[in-house]
């Protein structure tokens, strides 16, 4: 809920409960494993969509929400434009966004107005005259002039129109992301959970780094590293084939779906998932993921 700051900070779970107790978060993860791309990126996108929808549907005129938005001078650039796209997609309108940003624009405008008013030519000439008169009154007058007749510096204007807090959407989504990552590394000791993970596209590099930083369990680290190395090894082969088949003398060789999607999967691995949905890109990735599923089933049969 955007209106208040929910307690989303990660709390160490009760170890006595055992790691087999899968909660809602783990089930969300399981569902995300079945779709193409990094599961955490996908869950992050879903959380972002929910947050922005709720903000527009429920909290546009909520005082606390608006206070957070004022402190952060609106959402960050990325979430602002996502908010606009969300409102347009659901309501074909911009009233909610208009109300939020009218308030912010008005506040910035007031700060500029105050600066202008205190630095108008008439005020400046009055200040100058007063300073001169005071400075003729000896050391006390000079001291008084220094204390009383001050120009309004640009720093105060900068302070007034700068954000004092980070984007509320980023803050909440980051906390949710942390929650998902902590659940993932906690459950990575469970064989069933590991098989789900093995059949997925795995984590992207930014999330892999964070997942590794969240665990001290050497077994989990080894599992995540082995999985990443296995996927990257396959991806490298597919990329090499994709590049090789672009050469003039190999142009007649047809590319497999895994090779066709290899360059997109490589981008997704290093940069995280794309926020815009693209049907053609998704289809290519789904084909590649189906292949992982087949491999996971085959390896489980062999075992």
């Amino acid at each position, binding site marked *: 809920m955007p209106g208040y700051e929910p307690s989303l900070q990660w709390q160490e779970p009760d170890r006595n409960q055992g790691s087999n107790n899968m909660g809602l978060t783990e089930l969300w993860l399981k569902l995300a494993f079945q779709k193409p791309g990094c599961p955490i990126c996908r869950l992050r996108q879903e959380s972002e969509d929910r947050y922005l929808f709720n903000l527009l549907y429920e909290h546009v005129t909520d005082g606390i929400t608006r206070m957070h938005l004022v402190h952060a001078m609106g959402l960050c650039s990325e979430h602002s434009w996502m908010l606009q796209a969300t409102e347009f997609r659901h309501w074909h309108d911009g009233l909610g966004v208009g109300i939020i940003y009218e308030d912010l*624009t*008005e506040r910035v405008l007031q700060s500029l107005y105050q600066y*202008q008013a205190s630095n108008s030519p008439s005020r400046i000439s009055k200040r100058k005259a007063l300073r001169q008169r005071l400075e003729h009154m000896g050391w006390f007058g000079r001291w008084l002039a220094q204390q009383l007749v001050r120009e309004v510096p640009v720093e105060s204007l900068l302070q007034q129109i700068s954000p004092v807090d980070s984007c509320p959407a980023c803050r909440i989504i980051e906390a949710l992301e942390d929650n998902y990552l902590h659940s993932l590394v906690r459950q990575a000791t469970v064989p069933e959970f590991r098989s789900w993970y093995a059949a997925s596209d795995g984590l992207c*590099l930014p999330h892999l780094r964070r997942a590794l930083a969240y665990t001290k369990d050497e077994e989990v680290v080894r599992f995540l590293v082995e999985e990443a190395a296995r996927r990257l090894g396959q991806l490298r082969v597919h990329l090499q084939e994709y590049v090789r088949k672009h050469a003039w003398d190999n142009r007649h060789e047809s590319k497999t779906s895994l090779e066709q999607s290899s360059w997109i999967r*490589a981008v997704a691995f290093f*940069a995280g998932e794309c926020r815009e949905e693209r049907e053609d890109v998704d289809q290519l990735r789904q084909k590649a993921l189906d292949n992982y599923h087949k491999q996971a089933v085959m390896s489980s049969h062999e075992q």
Partner: protein
Amino acid sequence: MSGGLGYYALRDALLEPGCAVCRLKATAMARYLDSLLWENVNDPGIRRKIRQAQGFCQVHAWELVHRGASLAAALLMRDVLQNALKIVKEGCPRTLLDKPLRQTARELFYRQRHTLSDELVARLAPKARCPVCAQGEEMERIYLDTLVSQLLGKDGLLSAYETSDGLCLPHFLQALERVHEKEVLDALVKAQHQIWERLVEQLNEYIRKSDYRFCNEPWGDESDAWLRAIAAVAGARQESGQQ
């Protein structure tokens, strides 16, 4: 006015809708990507920069996909991937004996034992910024300096600025930080004030016309004020293929 290329680019961009610096920054980044994909995929210096940055940031990495630069992306990513794969395959030294002698000695002496993951995370972290972002920020700095230095005087940019959509709030803040002369500061604040005042009036009108009592009134210039308000406060949208 000997303003240089930045001056003329700014003068032209101020005639276009939205924040001129956002527009020019987006153009600079798009040009950089174009030249990278068209000319420099096999340039060793650029490849080294990309390897150090572990590829591109999320926005610019997906820009490769949106541009359909499949072969260039495959070549660049293969390079980055081989580097990452080497780190991941090497994993981490499992025991003290597997580590370099100096590190083992230091750990034993200072009792600083890093966990397996800490070392791996450090090795996998990018060592440089996304090259496209770095280029964009460099150009942004040049344009803001040009705007501030060329705002007043004969053929100054002030008249074009006053009739434009002004700067977005993040760029306005950056411009204010660069101002050293009071006249320039006053002119900039006054012009921006007028621009935002106009925008607030249009937003008020947009909200009024969304009321059921006035919803029959035809839309005027205020119809896209909500979009311009987002752009004014948050900066322009980073779109794929934005020119």
